[in-house]
């Protein structure tokens, strides 16, 4: 990598000696030297070429001396490393130069082997520092992009509640809190036709950007397939086949998909490897929903899925969540667990779903105070109100 050095000295002999001593490195494009006769001219050169790595400067010069130049360099070009050339034994000036941020010094008469070693070390430092700054800027740019990605991801799931203000026969609420900027969880819901509400929760294996990309594909694919009006088991079968073909590095996603008949409360559902949701009874009792035994989607080519049917009575609901809820940890590494979740869901048949969800999130947060969120947390809850409304 080419390093650029600005040599500042009012006497021409240094220039002559440098061009002789470093002839080979200049020819091999390892070093590039440019020269100035004073501090003023040096600053002029730096304005013309912003890519300078090292400044080698004398102390005593007309117009602007080396110490003043050092102060200006510090202010205007903090990435440039300066080496000063001083008279042998001139400790006062050497100390002052170092205190003003000079990286190192050489003394006159110049020992060129020492100068070479000093320059080599200084260049390495300057280039390392420059690279670190570049890396930091890149990191900041990536973080900004991730923040944009977070907003996009949050906006591709329905965020407006209540989503169907004129539908009084059911209540639905959901939330998604990624552990990092973006996550692999998702939820979705949509009206397939006037009387059928499709709803889904999913959890991609892993976290961060790879999971987020797979999440976006899974969510889009599921909805596009579901809107064809297929029964849940056929829907998951089709989505699985496509995901399997797309699934690099054995990515997979758990999906629970249900269809609620908003007139009768009939609920058809099919599960692909997702943890069991809870049935919220009208009397405040809760129970785990019986699973259907399907494999996570994207894992096996020809996974077969089965659906089950239950009928929700007026006031009954279903609470779906991802394992970020039950596997939230406290400081001792203990899991929040199903038991604590169940305690938070029991006996609240008259609490609105948004309040119910809020209280669960608060309980999880309180439980894992002081521990960084390890996994994405997503919840979707649905209640059939039927004729009661």
């Amino acid at each position, binding site marked *: 990598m080419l390093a650029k050095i600005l040599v500042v000295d009012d006497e021409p002999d240094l220039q002559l000696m440098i061009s002789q001593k470093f002839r080979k490195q200049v020819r091999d494009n390892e070093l590039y030297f440019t020269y100035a006769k004073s501090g003023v001219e040096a600053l002029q050169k730096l304005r013309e070429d912003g890519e300078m790595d090292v400044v080698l400067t004398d102390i005593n010069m007309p117009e602007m001396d080396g110490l003043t130049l050092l102060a200006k360099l510090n202010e205007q070009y903090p990435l440039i490393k300066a080496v000063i050339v001083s008279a042998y034994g001139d400790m006062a000036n050497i100390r002052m130069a170092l205190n003003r941020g000079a990286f190192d010094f050489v003394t006159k008469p110049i020992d060129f082997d020492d100068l070479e070693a000093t320059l080599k070390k200084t260049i390495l430092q300057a280039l390392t520092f420059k690279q670190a700054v570049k890396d930091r800027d890149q990191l900041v740019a990536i973080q900004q992009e991730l923040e944009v990605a977070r907003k996009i991801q949050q906006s591709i799931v329905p965020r407006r509640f209540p989503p169907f203000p004129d539908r009084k026969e059911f209540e639905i609420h959901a939330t998604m809190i990624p552990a990092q900027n973006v996550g692999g969880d998702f939820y979705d819901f949509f009206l397939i036709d006037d009387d059928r509400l499709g709803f889904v929760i999913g*959890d*991609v*294996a*892993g*976290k961060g950007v790879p999971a987020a990309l797979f999440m976006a594909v899974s969510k889009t694919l599921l909805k596009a397939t579901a809107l064809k009006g297929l029964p849940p088991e056929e829907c998951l079968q089709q989505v699985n086949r496509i995901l399997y073909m797309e699934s690099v*590095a*054995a*990515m*997979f996603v*758990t999906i629970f998909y249900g269809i609620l008949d908003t007139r009768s409360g009939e609920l058809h559902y099919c599960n*692909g*490897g*997702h*943890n*069991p949701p809870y049935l919220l009874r009208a009397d405040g009792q809760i129970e785990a929903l019986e*699973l259907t*035994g*399907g*494999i*996570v989607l994207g*894992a*096996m080519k020809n*996974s077969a899925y089965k659906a089950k049917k239950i009928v929700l009575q007026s006031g009954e609901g279903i609470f779906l969540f991802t*394992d970020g809820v039950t*596997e939230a940890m406290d400081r001792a590494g203990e899991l929040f667990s199903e038991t604590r979740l169940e305690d938070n869901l029991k006996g609240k048949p008259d609490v609105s779903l948004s309040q119910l969800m809020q209280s669960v999130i608060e309980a999880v947060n309180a439980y894992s105070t002081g521990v960084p969120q*390890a*996994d994405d947390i997503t919840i979707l809850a649905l209640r059939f109100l039927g004729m009661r409304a």
Partner: protein
Amino acid sequence: MEITQTRHGDVVVLALNGRLDAHTAPQAEAPLLAPIEQGAKQLLVDFSRVDYISSAGLRVLLVAARTISENDGKIVLCGLKPAIKSVFDIAGFSSIFPIFASQQEAFNHFMK
């Protein structure tokens, strides 16, 4: 996560010790795949000293299962604690991997 590899006839036995989660799963990937890449067709993964597995852990097993099936090989598991077995059941992985109570039962399966 510690992984101990032993051999029992043609069966390569990998005994896992610790948690198989998002942190440890990437470390487990290479030791799981190494015997397969070296041509092993019968792999037994012993879970008796594993007390937690997350989806990242399941993914590593899936990678291994897919790789070994390309070589007409097979992975079986043994010694799953109830909590681990339940994770496999929910994810549907119990129908991907034959699961046995002990190493001996798994060896008997391979002998058939």
